[in-house]
Every structure is written in C-alpha cells, then in structure tokens.
C-alpha cells in the first residue's frame, strides 16, 4: 500500500450520509482506499441510528436528506458529541446556507464535488480543531 502524501491520520471512523446512493458509496470507497473505515446512511433517521451505534470520529453529510433536514441531524449529533468532526457536503454553497450549517454545529462546509486535497487536509487533522 502506498503511503499517503500528507501525514494523514489513518483509520478514522467516518460516517457518510447522502441520499444519492452512488455518491455515498463512491465517497466511502475512496475513504476506505485511503485507509479509513466508512459506514453509510442514506437518510436522516438511519444516520442518527448509525451515529449512536458506530460512534464515528467524522461525519460527512449531505444537507438535503429525504426525511429529516440535514441541519437537524447535525444539531442532534453536535448535542450528543462535542468531539465529532461534522462536515457538510452539499451542492448549495451560498453564504446563507454556510451560516446556517455553522450555526447547526458543522465544523466545515464542503461543496460538491468534494475537492480531494481539501478532504485529505481535513481528515489529516488529529481532532476537531475548535474542540
């Protein structure tokens, strides 16, 4: 296995939440290839369930979920865990939605399609920067 270019923290437990199944699975495949463990949820309810059972270090989450607003899900997760790194991954990038995602407890807001280097940089940090 090739060593990553950046000194990347390996083996992080990552929860990927996206109602676009292909997008979620492809991102998970990429993360696994990078040496992380990824679990998948396609809606808000199962995201919360997995969050409770798998206790991920990082959550990469789309905001437009079919059942619950992604912001709601983030609020719940943030209330349950101050340490988890919450990253919004969405097609909407305007300032108002960024502000709302910050307010809901997201640490970062990445625009789709996710820039791989930006993601690597994020995941290379040992823990939540502001925690």
């Amino acid at each position: 296995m090739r060593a990553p270019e950046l000194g990347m923290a390996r083996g992080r437990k990552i929860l990927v939440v996206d109602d676009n199944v292909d997008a979620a699975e492809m991102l998970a495949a990429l993360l696994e290839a990078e040496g992380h463990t990824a679990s998948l949820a396609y809606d808000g309810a199962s995201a919360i369930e997995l969050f409770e059972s798998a206790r991920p270090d990082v959550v990469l989450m789309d905001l437009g979920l079919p059942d619950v607003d992604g912001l709601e899900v983030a609020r719940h997760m943030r209330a349950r865990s101050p340490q988890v790194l919450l990253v919004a991954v969405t097609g909407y990038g305007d300032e108002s939605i960024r502000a709302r995602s910050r307010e809901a407890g997201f640490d970062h807001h990445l625009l789709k399609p996710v820039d791989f280097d930006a993601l690597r940089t994020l995941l290379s940090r040992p823990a939540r920067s502001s925690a």
Partner: protein
Amino acid sequence: MGDAHHLSQQIATMVQRASALALRLPRDSDQTPLLREAVFELCGALEELNVLDDELREQNALLLAKTAELEHERRRYRELFVLAPMGYLTTRRDGVITEANAAAAELLGLSDSVLVGKAIGVFVVRTEFARMGVLLDRLDADASDMVEDVLVLHTFDRSRQFRCCVRVGHEGGPHGEPVGYRWVIQDATTRERAAQADRLLRESQSKDELLAMLGHELRNPLAPIRAAVDLWRHHGDRLTPDQSRWSIEVVARHAEHLAHVVDDLLDASRVALGKVRLRRRTFDLREIIDDARDAIRQSAELHALALELPRHPVLVDGDPNRLRQVVLDLLDNAIKYTPRGGAIGVSLHREVGAAVIHVHDEGVGIAPEMLEAMFEPFVQGERTLNRSQGGVGLGLTLVRQLVELHGGTVTAHSAGPGCGSDFEVRLPLVETVGDEPARTGIGGLVRDTPVRVLVVDDNEDAAEMLGMLLRASGHVVELAFDAVRARAVAERFTPELVLLDLGLPDIDGLQLGRELVARFPHALIAALTGYGDGQIRQQTRAIGLHHHLLKPIDIEDLGRLLDDAAERGAQP
C-alpha cells in the same frame, strides 16, 4: 348640562316645599285628606321627575363621551387624509376643490389652503379634457365605486407636466345624495417605478434561487464522478476488477444524468427565451399518443398501461415532436412515481373546442400544496432514493412551457398522497368541416378524403340505397349485382372498401371474398349479410375477411368501416 343641573335643583326645592306643606296641613279640615293625597301625588311625581333627570344626565354623559370619541376618530382620519402619500381631493359637482391633502397640494404645486376654491380643471392639460369627461361619464355609467385613468396634468404655474393616475368616485352627502367627487391622484411615473422596482427585486430573488438550485443539480452528479476519478488516480493500482467495473458504471450513469440535466436546462431556457420555434402542422393527436406508448413500452412493462383513444381523428395545430415530448414526459413521470404493477392510463377525448389528454396513475399521489409548485423548476415530489434514476425536476416545467406555447394548459389533480395523480393537457382543437355533429346520421359518413367503395349485392335495391348513401357523403361508389361483374369492376376500380353480400347468384360469396382478399391486400373487405351465426362468421374470418356485419347495416358501423379502410389505404 347647566340646564340639567338647574332642573335637578328646582326639583329638590319643590320636593322640600311639598314635604313642608304636607306637615303644615290643618289636622281636621274636610279638605285635609284630599289635600294630603294631592301633596303625596305631587311628591311622587317629583320623585319620578328626579329619576328621569338622573337618566337624562347619564345619557348626556354617554353622548359627550361618544362625541369626544368621534372627534378623535375624525382627527385621526383627517391626519391620514392630510398626510397620506397619495393625493386626495374632494370637489363639488362643478369641479371646485373643497378639500385637499398635502400630497395633492405638492403634486399640483400649490399649498393646500390655496388649492381649495380652484377648479380641478385648471390642472388638466387642455388636450386631456375630453378624456376627463369620458372618465366622469364612465363613473356614472358603471355605477362603480371608483373609475381610473392616466391623464396628463400640470402644476398651477404650468412649469411641470406629469402623467397622473387619476381615480374618481362620488362623494355622498349625509343622506347619500351626490354632492361632489372624491379624487385620488398619484404621479404615474412614481407608481410605475415602484412597481418595477418591486418586480425587479422579485425577479432577482427568484433568479438567485434558481441559480442556487441549478448549482445543486449540477454539482450532485459531479460528486460521485469526481470521487471515482480520485479513487482511480490515487488508488487505481489496488482496485479489484469488480470495483473498477462498478466505478465506471457509476461514472457513466452520472455523466449521462448530467448530460440530461444540461439538455433539459437548455431546452427550458430556449423555451423561456422564446427561441423554440414550433414546426406547426395540423395533425391527429392520436398518432403521437401511439408513438409515446411505443417509446416507453420497455420502461412501462412493469406497469399496467391502458390507452384510450377515440375512434375519430382529434386534430390540433401544433408541433408533433414537441407534443410527443409532452406526452412522453408525463408518462415518464407517471412511471417514476408508480410502484410496479400499478396502473397507468393515457386517454384522449374531444370537448367543445378542446382536445383533452389525461395521463393518470395509481402512484404516490401529490400533496395539495404541491399541485401548482410542481411545475416550478427543480421542484420534485417525494424524492427517490437515488435521484440519478429520477428526473432533474425540469420535466414538468418543460411540459407546461411547451403546452402553453401551443396555447393550451396543463394542470395536475390528485386526491392526495397515496391516491395517484392525474395530469390534464388541454389543447385548442382544430374544427373540421363535417365535424362531430355531422358525423351522426347520413352526414356521419363524410370524411376528409373520399373512400372508394365497392358494394356487391344481388339485391339491387339494397345495393342502390347503400350506394346513394355513400355517394351523398362524398365517396366514390361502384355497384355490382353478381360476382363476375364484381371481379371486373374491382380490377379497374381498385376499391379501398368492399361491402360483400355472401349470397350471390353466380359464385359463392365466400369464394369471391377469398379472391378479393388475395388480389387487394390493402382493401378492407367486409361481409354484409343476413346470416350471423357462429359458423358463417368463422368461415368469413377463415378466408380473411376483415369484418362481418349484419343487414341492415348500422350507420355508425359503416362510418367505422370507412375510417378503417382509409387507415389501411394510408399504409404503404
């Protein structure tokens, strides 16, 4: 109030005097009982007067309070009137201004006190007098509350002219009798500018929203594509064949979806910009519905698809390709939101002046608040788990745009979630000569193109009658009373429709029928006979006759034969 006070004092004094009088009455006079009674009555009356006086005072106080309240209200309205941003005027019936507020004074370039007493006409540009007169006439004629027009006015010193929105109504007196006019005047340019600013703001907001949604719709399919590319770029050497195949499929799927989004977007924007030219012609809507059915056959095979088309052409003036796209998009939509095995139906029928297409399904249905919103760009019903399999939320927007380009309407109906949905497209119908009403009775046999009909019957009267009927409806008819003659006529005439009696004098009708079927494969050949039992029907079917009709022939059946014959003839 002073009087009332005075009155109550007087009453009090009189009561005192009457009481004193009662005490001083002589004890044993004959008059005494009478007098005493009179004094008591007086006292009683005074007491009542006292009560009345109290009530009067109470009412007086109430009245005063009400008056104060009214005065307060009046002042408030006065203030509103004076300070309102629109110009308010009242005039007598001869146009002399009796009241004016600050805005009116400013518009007309005089202070409000000076304005009163001037005739309103002096502010109207001379050439506008006639229109002013028309406006006042309309007010009387319409019996409406207020009438409105835009007139050119000028200031008192004529230094400024301006277009002014003038509204005028009757001013009624205390008993509703007309005493003059109420006027509302507003600089038209200001008003239009405000409306325009409002519209621009709304447009820019919806444009921002649209752009945000557009970004979202384009970025979403890019996400798995870019992730796959990163996977290959950084870990390509370690991918299993399965992973490779899968990731290529995902990329292909989303690239296709992306292309679809871009196509739809370009389509929608072309329509919105008026760049779509309809290639219009008059055509039968039944054709495109048939086409659409064929086009979706594969994706619809998991559903029960029912088609209901009328027997007669439904002509519209439009672009067949675009209207086919409309039907296809609606069908796609129905398929997408209907579970496997669910029924989907397409029907076409004519109403007065309209061709009406219904596409209905037994799918997930539509919440009432979504019925209209659905036609907005990027608005979708319940989201499918993987949106790449769904649409992009532009299909219905396009459908509406295209239908409206044709001068039609499209609406959605649903009893609610879970109750299926129904989309109705209404298009202007092209009325043809000899249309619907004429199609009953004898006129019901008239067609756009005449049909060549051969009638074979040894009953000459029956053949002649039928021939007359068809000729009167504009068709070309030949008669034959026996089989030999029928053969000869058919050779030269090449009929499109043959009505064949089976009991002929020379050759068996079935034999002739078999020959004609072989010789004229494009013709419609129908047995027309008095025999209708199962065996003979089986025989006519066996030799390849297309229909078996019983005498006397029904006009509607005959009409149907003409349609079928024309259709067969039209085939290559």
